[in-house]
């Protein structure tokens, strides 16, 4: 789960990481009230997860109330690279003497958190890594030991920060690490981490990714919303407990097991088709889950044909067939379905489908044949389904 900038900053503040004060706003009036409370100059920042939003007009400084109103009016509802701005963050303007970079990353390969720091902040860190790799200091932290003061000193000295900032920087990195562990984050990035003329450090931006699997122990985080990144189909699938990812093609896909579904998307693409979604019906899929899945897939109006690719292990093919028959009764799909059933109780499943004589449903013997067939059907069927 990716947090918006202000949600990340609120998380930082809870763990003692210094951040400029600010308030979120969803309307122009709220934004003006917030700016009045914070004082001028203040900054109006679009809350979308996209790098370089400043250059795209998503961050503006307001000298007074009129400007705050104008900026909020321009930014709210704005489209930044396909993401609509639903919220702005009004923040006190910061004076910047220097821009640094800090991050804590869940390094899967090393099986340890990786802490990175650089005095070259304010630009894309991958670009810094390419042009001047020596400018980035980094180290792995033993997950059972945690971040120690010496870790902070090593990073600060290696990166060459001024002597008076070594101690405050060590403290700030320790708090960022604490946030990373305490909130079950997969990534915490502060770019820029600024030095003010008063020689104080602050997180001027916040990029935080949380582990979805750990949200059960962070109910506050689980309740955070990001409307700009939420797709209606994905939202609907989530509510029904399905694992669904929206893609931009026109062939609806359902399979069981993440690996098999990914593989199905690839095989459909190789056959010349464009998948509309990833949907894993999971192990032991029961009839109700199949009905819900069909509803979610067909709620995407771009879908012209649907492929079911099932290899039954725990999942029983007869259950999937029953679910499909039920779904056809309830949803009455107007687009063709291609079904491939293999594995546990596959003969029974195919017999149920044959007996039900569902309109617009074809059964294919293999994954490859099914993929080719659904691609042909999507190419030939009407563009808009009647529903």
């Amino acid at each position: 789960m990716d947090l918006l900038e202000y949600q990340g900053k609120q998380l930082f503040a809870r763990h003692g990481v210094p951040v400029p004060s600010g308030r979120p706003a969803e309307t122009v009036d709220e934004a003006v009230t917030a700016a009045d409370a914070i004082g001028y100059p203040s900054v109006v920042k679009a809350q979308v997860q996209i790098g370089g939003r400043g250059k795209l007009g998503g961050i503006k400084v307001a000298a007074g109330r009129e400007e705050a109103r104008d900026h909020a009016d321009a930014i709210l509802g704005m489209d930044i690279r396909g993401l609509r701005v639903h919220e702005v963050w009004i923040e006190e303007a910061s004076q910047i003497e220097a821009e640094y970079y800090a991050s804590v990353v869940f390094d899967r390969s090393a099986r340890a958190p990786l802490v990175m720091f650089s005095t070259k902040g304010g630009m894309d860190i991958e670009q810094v890594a390419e042009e001047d790799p020596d400018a980035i200091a980094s180290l792995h932290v033993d997950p059972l030991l945690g971040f120690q003061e010496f870790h902070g000193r090593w990073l600060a000295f290696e990166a060459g920060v001024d002597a008076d900032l070594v101690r405050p920087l060590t403290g700030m990195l320790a708090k960022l690490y604490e946030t990373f562990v305490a909130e079950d984050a997969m990534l915490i990035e502060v770019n820029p981490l600024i030095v003010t003329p008063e020689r104080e450090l602050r997180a001027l931006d916040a990029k935080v990714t949380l582990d979805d699997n750990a949200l059960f122990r962070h109910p506050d985080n689980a309740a955070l919303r990001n409307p700009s990144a939420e797709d209606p189909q994905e939202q609907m699938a989530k509510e029904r407990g399905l694992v669904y990812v929206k893609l931009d093609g026109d062939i609806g896909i359902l399979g069981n097991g993440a690996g098999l579904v990914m593989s199905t998307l690839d095989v459909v693409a190789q056959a010349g088709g464009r998948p509309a979604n990833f949907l894993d019906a999971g192990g032991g899929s029961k009839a109700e889950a199949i009905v819900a899945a069909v509803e979610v897939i067909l709620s995407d109006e771009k879908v012209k044909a649907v492929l079911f690719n099932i290899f039954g292990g725990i999942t029983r093919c007869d259950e999937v067939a029953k679910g499909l028959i039920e779904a056809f009764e309830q949803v009455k799909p107007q687009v063709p379905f291609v079904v491939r059933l293999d594995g546990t109780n596959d003969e029974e499943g195919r017999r149920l489908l044959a007996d039900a004589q569902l309109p617009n449903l074809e059964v294919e013997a293999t994954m490859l044949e099914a993929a080719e067939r659904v691609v042909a059907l999507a190419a030939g069927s009407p563009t808009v389904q009647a529903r």
Partner: protein
Amino acid sequence: MSILVDHETRLCVSGITGREGTFHALNNKRYGTDVVSGVTPGKGGQQVDGIPVFDSFREAVEQTDANTAMVFVPARFAADSILEAAEAGIRTIVAITEGIPAHDELRVSTHLGRLGGVRLIGPNCPGVLSPGKANVGIIPADFFKEGNVGVVSRSGTLTYQIGNELAQAGFGNSSIVGIGGDPVPGLSFIDVLELFEADPETALVVMSGEIGGAAEEEAAEYIAENVSKPVVAYIAGFTAPPGKTMGHAGAIVSGSKGTAAAKAEALEAAGVRVGRTPTEVSEIVIESLDG
């Protein structure tokens, strides 16, 4: 021979009194696995179809000589159960549970690494099947028979798909190992490749990977240096968009990292043949073993 589970396996199932735990424990037992005990705190003294249940792994090991654990408890209790099994002296632990927090997995992995000698398979995996000998987990054993193809995979159903195509062509398996789809798995591709390389019954290894992380790239380097047996690979997720988790917690392309194309390229550079579809994988295997 085979790897990880066989006739020597004495299995203790954590979470045996739960619905899924009971179902699969009995399924494994019917297959011929020696299921000696189960653990559910607070239900010690009960039995599940004749299998004794204990309050702790310590008791289960003392009284039934269990040497292998299968963890079937919900995600929030799973890390604890894995650590308990290791503390009780069990050295092969198969964790089926899906959805364990990544930081928990990191702590478990670091601790077990220091303890030494413990093999954790999973979490979020279908388990290990050595056809004709033992099944520990949820792999539908009926589709597989004894043979000389070793399989190691991050995905369950994809393994069944590939295994089934091989079976229809007349090939069987030495062992099938699901290492799971999480960011911090116990055994890695490299660990399992090392075991298959040393297993006299295994003639060829099929390795099935997917997007996310760098485990396939690391395996490619290892294969080039250390594996003499032929390896055939498959990678799922060529069409996955960046930044989206594709079902498995570990299956995510982050920026330009962890793409299927980069993985396939690394494996091919190491001399591994990569099938573009599951069917192509089985065709390459058949060609390699017949030729």
